């Protein structure tokens, strides 16, 4: 790379360039490979010194090679200085007219003065005119003082600007159900938690007095009086006229059947879909995972057999699968709460009104029933009422949404059978399809190939879309092992199986709960992988997620009586958040505000004792509370997103963001949210020091945090960063390296690795080897979703 070339390649606007007068670089090979790196570093990574490059303002500066090494001649120095002075002078000629002794700066505002000359003349009397003002640095009086002192003094007055938002909210997420409590369904504060078997827990919970309304949304009363009657009758075998309808009800979605008919054989996904849809026959209404506390305790299956009730849940092969898989048959679980004796006599919800016959249900009022048993009963009973059941509170609660007026009309007309869905104009339909079908690959492996050789790369073993079961189970496996790229591939396959594959966008299709869940997973993974443009492309056919065919009412035959949105709330949120990552924060804000509006409207409906969608359904108090809680948590999630969005618009609005966080706290109504932990206080103090440039104190404070909480990764990392700012590179490096080696699970994190590689680069010209060592560490532990950019190897 000769000098001229280097110069010509460089954009003039380059902020920083390096001039090397006397060769410093290592072996040439390395240097050459580094040069590429250096280019990037100079432009992207901001390290000044990675490579010697030459840019002294375009003047012909021919001397460097000759001057290399040992003794710089005086003439060289002179010449150099001349060069530099010339190149440095640039355009801003010093303006020496200032009366003070500061090195003057040219007045760059002269233009303004002339511009404003005309108005001045007109109004000479009242206005002396608009002057442009020269800015100069404030050194007048302070000039004599030592500059360090000055800085110190000024800092004394400095107010802290950016206080980190302290994690005072105690609950991790907006969803109250994400607790790590091994007992899946225990509500907070209710039910004996020491029960080893979750089912029992649930049950005992359900026998609690109603006054102890559980705060989760699981406990749901069956409100249909007929239901209660049925349970009183206790007839399992009750045959209802509706039974005739059942085949219709159980029909898998047309597109699926079509798919299987067409090319079912070879596709591994078809098996999956087959079982999946069959299972979902009576249940297709429900969401996988609904009301399961995933990863929860022991599967309730064993209890199922206790009652010897016929159960389609047997189609789920393993107990683990029951919990982990999306197998829909688990979903009736949420009826468990119906075990509660139903004392209320609300009118039937409209959707259940069509089932005139008392339910055959064994949900006997007082009899404890593990909910999976109930489920088994329902599924086994072959009773259409099972379907009616699945229109339960939980579904309605979660799926509630307020469609726009136009969509509402379409849905009403479908419901009243004015016309069949087939005649709905196609531009009102949602016709998604994959927009890309290339495999995502594994960046870590690619890097290993190029740096560590093929053998090393072969050693890397990660799960791929091929190596797992072609089902929701496999998908979850990929996600939890952080192989998100493979997971994206798998969602692609599954969606292809559903007829929404590559190139299928714009073709008529139908939606099921599962297909939309797949889309949701796929899109959220794309976002997690920073593939925002891909996500945007694939989101596009969904429009504003308000098309009629995204509502259950649109499929009266598949989801009889079920109402609400098929699109999960989280997907709406994702859709709303997406534009902010694409530099369209205002659009994101708009969408978030729309979400917020709907949430507020639903909350208002609930406050008025209406159903979520405003219809005049009486809801039991417990259900109403549960609904309120759910929608409040959703609202607060939206608030969080809004705050994030404002943050992304670059601090700009931190105060507003803070206000939003206060709102969130209120929405949560957390108790003791004001009680800060010692760690939290210390952290905040450290950040205050940081903002005052007091790295020594900040470092000390982070160390104090570590005394309280030695494993705190944030404090560890931040202490190391402070050390660097104190000029203690080696110590800092040692600390970070130690952390990564001791506890890779915690410290093989993007941010830590980024810091570490930056320090490597700063420390030595042989950073590449050290980075490769990191790559190997990463390769053993991380999935294919690892962001390799932080290693700065390329």
């Amino acid at each position: 790379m000769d000098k001229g070339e280097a110069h010509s390649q460089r954009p003039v606007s380059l902020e920083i360039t390096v001039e090397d007068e006397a060769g410093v670089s290592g072996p040439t090979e390395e240097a050459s490979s580094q040069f590429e790196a250096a280019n990037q570093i100079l432009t992207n990574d901001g390290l000044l010194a990675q490579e010697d490059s030459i840019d002294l303002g375009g003047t012909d500066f021919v001397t460097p090679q000759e001057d290399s090494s040992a003794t710089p001649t005086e003439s060289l120095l002179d010449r150099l200085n001349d060069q530099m002075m010339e190149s440095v002078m640039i355009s801003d000629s010093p303006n020496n007219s200032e009366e003070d002794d500061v090195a003057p700066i040219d007045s760059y505002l002269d233009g303004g003065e002339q511009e404003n000359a005309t108005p001045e003349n007109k109004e000479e009397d009242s206005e002396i005119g608009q002057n442009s003002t020269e800015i100069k640095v404030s050194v007048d009086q302070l000039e004599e003082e030592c500059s360090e002192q000055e800085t110190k003094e000024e800092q004394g007055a400095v107010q802290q600007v950016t206080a980190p938002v302290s994690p005072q909210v105690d609950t991790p997420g907006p969803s109250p159900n994400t607790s790590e409590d091994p007992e899946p369904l225990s509500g907070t504060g209710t039910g004996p938690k020491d029960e080893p078997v979750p089912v029992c827990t649930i049950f005992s919970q359900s026998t609690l007095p109603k006054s102890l309304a559980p705060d989760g949304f699981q406990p749901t009363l069956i409100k249909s009086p007929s239901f209660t009657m049925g349970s009183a009758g206790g007839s399992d075998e009750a045959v209802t006229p509706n039974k005739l309808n059942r085949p219709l009800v159980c029909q898998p979605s047309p597109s699926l059947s079509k798919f299987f008919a067409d090319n079912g054989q070879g596709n591994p996904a078809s098996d999956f879909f087959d079982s999946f849809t069959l299972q979902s026959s009576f249940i297709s209404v429900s969401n996988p995972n609904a009301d399961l506390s995933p990863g929860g305790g022991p599967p309730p299956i064993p209890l199922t057999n206790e009652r010897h009730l016929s159960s389609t849940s047997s189609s789920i092969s393993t107990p683990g699968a029951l919990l982990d898989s999306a197998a829909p048959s688990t979903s009736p679980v949420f009826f468990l709460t119906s075990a509660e004796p139903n004392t209320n006599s609300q009118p039937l919800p409209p959707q259940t009104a069509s089932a005139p016959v008392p339910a055959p249900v064994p949900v006997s009022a007082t009899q404890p029933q593990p909910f999976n048993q109930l489920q088994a009963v329902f599924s086994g009973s072959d009773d259409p009422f099972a379907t009616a059941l699945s229109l339960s509170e939980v579904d309605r609660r979660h799926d509630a949404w307020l469609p726009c007026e136009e969509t509402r009309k379409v849905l009403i007309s479908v419901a009243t059978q004015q016309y069949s869905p087939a005649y709905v104009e196609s531009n009102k339909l949602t016709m998604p399809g994959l927009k890309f079908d290339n495999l995502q690959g594994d960046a870590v492996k690619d890097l290993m190939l190029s740096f560590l050789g093929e053998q090393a790369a072969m050693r890397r073993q990660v799960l791929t879309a091929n190596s797992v079961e072609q089902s929701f189970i496999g998908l979850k496996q990929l996600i939890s092992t952080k192989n998100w790229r493979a997971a994206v591939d798998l969602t692609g396959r599954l969606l292809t199986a559903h007829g929404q594959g590559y190139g299928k966008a714009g073709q008529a299709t139908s939606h099921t709960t599962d297909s939309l869940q797949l889309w949701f997973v796929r899109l959220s993974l794309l976002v997690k992988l920073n593939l925002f443009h891909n996500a945007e492309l694939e989101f596009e056919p969904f429009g504003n997620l308000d098309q009629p065919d995204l509502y259950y009412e649109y499929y009266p035959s598949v989801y009889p009586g079920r109402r609400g949105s098929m699109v999960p709330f989280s997907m709406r949120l994702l859709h709303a958040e997406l534009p902010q990552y694409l530099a369209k924060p205002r659009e994101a804000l708009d969408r978030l505000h729309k979400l917020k509006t709907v949430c507020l409207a639903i909350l208002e409906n609930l406050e008025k004792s209406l159903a979520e969608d405003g219809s005049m359904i009486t809801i039991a108090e417990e259900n109403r509370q549960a609904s309120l809680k759910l929608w409040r948590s959703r609202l607060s999630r939206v608030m969080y997103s809004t705050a994030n969005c404002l943050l992304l618009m670059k601090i700009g609005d931190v105060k507003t963001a803070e206000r939003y966080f206060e709102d969130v706290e209120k929405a949560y109504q957390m108790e003791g949210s004001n009680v800060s932990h010692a760690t939290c206080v210390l952290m905040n103090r450290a950040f205050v020091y940081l903002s005052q440039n007091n790295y020594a104190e900040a470092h000390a404070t982070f160390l104090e945090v570590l005394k309280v909480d030695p494993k705190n990764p944030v404090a560890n990392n931040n202490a190391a960063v402070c050390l660097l700012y104190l000029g203690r590179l080696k110590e800092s490096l040692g600390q970070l390296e130690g952390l990564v080696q001791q506890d890779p699970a915690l410290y093989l994190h993007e941010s830590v690795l980024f810091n570490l590689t930056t320090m490597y680069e700063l420390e030595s010209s042989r950073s590449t080897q050290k980075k490769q060592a990191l790559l190997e560490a990463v390769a053993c532990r991380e999935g294919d979703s690892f962001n390799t950019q932080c290693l700065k190897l390329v």
Partner: protein
Amino acid sequence: MDVNQAKQEHLLALKVMRLTKPTLFTNLPVTCEDRDLPGDLFAQLMREDPSTIKGAETLMLGEMLTLPQNFGNIFLGETFSSYISVHNDSNQVVKDILVKADLQTSSQRLNLSASNSAVAELKPECCIDDVIHHEVKEIGTHILVCAVSYTSQFGEKLYFRKFFKFQVLKPLDVKTKFYNAETDEVFLEAQIQNITTSPMFMEKVSLEPSMMYNVTELNSVACGDQGESTFGKMSYLQPMDTRQYLYCLKPKPEYAEKAGVIKGVTVIGKLDIVWKTNLGERGRLQTSQLQRMAPGYGDIRLSLEVIPDTVNLEEPFGIVCKITNCSERTMDLVMEMCNTRSIHWCGISGRQLGKLSPAASLSLPLTVFSSEQGLQSISGLRLTDTFLKRTYEYDDIAQVCVVCPFMSNEC
């Protein structure tokens, strides 16, 4: 490449990194509800992620600090900090290492090294670290010159330097405008525009008046005990946004008495601006002394001391004029009053006002009425200095609103 080959390999490597404030790591919160397909997985992954805030995982901003990712921009008034590391890449002990860091600006060369003494020896894989700071006081190109000299194992004296060039940009655009009130007060309107690419927190914008003036800030609205800033609660200035600050300057009494003498260019004061950006990165600028061209009053200044704002049609009203001799000599004045189309003076035109010494003034009550409705301009005063036979014309001294005192039907 050619260059590199021609170079001799050095035992030491010099690395320089600008230390801007560290940034907080941000993550991408993607959540789902328990009913959704991934179930708890997303939430669990986020909880396990060390960079999220426990209890607020859905918040994008974490507490994890990351080192600067790029050089960024540096603006006038900010502090340039840089890490300088000299690392011994070789396997031999190097002696007498001297690292010098100079900053070459367009006008001067500053030594930034903390110490100028040589380090006796540097073992392999060890390094010499230095963190330099410099408050940037000039815009334009700056060059950081790092020079390293050392002695090798074999007593060979070696030397190399590196240059790092960066541009210092202007962060703010400041425009000022003066308004002169009749009462010798001066209003200063200052427009401050953020011309950087990131938002700024304006910590302080104040006007330091010169010794002749007292200043009142007019940037807050009195509301209860505490004045609220006219900019609302938020002190952030987005990129390219402009704020207008208003100040009222009153000459101090000792100077006010000689108001007539305030002539030509006067120094009003200077603006002091302190701002903060990322993680409290601080910048401070002062403008140069703001100068005001005092309104040119000529030899004689005629100002109004009393004038009604609204008068009745065809009804005489009084005004009081103040006549100040702004010249260096004594004047002997004669005043004439010329009627205009609407303004009619009452009293004798051409009367002697007597002698007026320099800087002296006299008050003169006059009576006038208007024959037309509407906003009428008072004009037609003529002052003649009999010494120099020079006439000064005063038109459009003030305006009065002339209304009809009767009901409309009576008119």
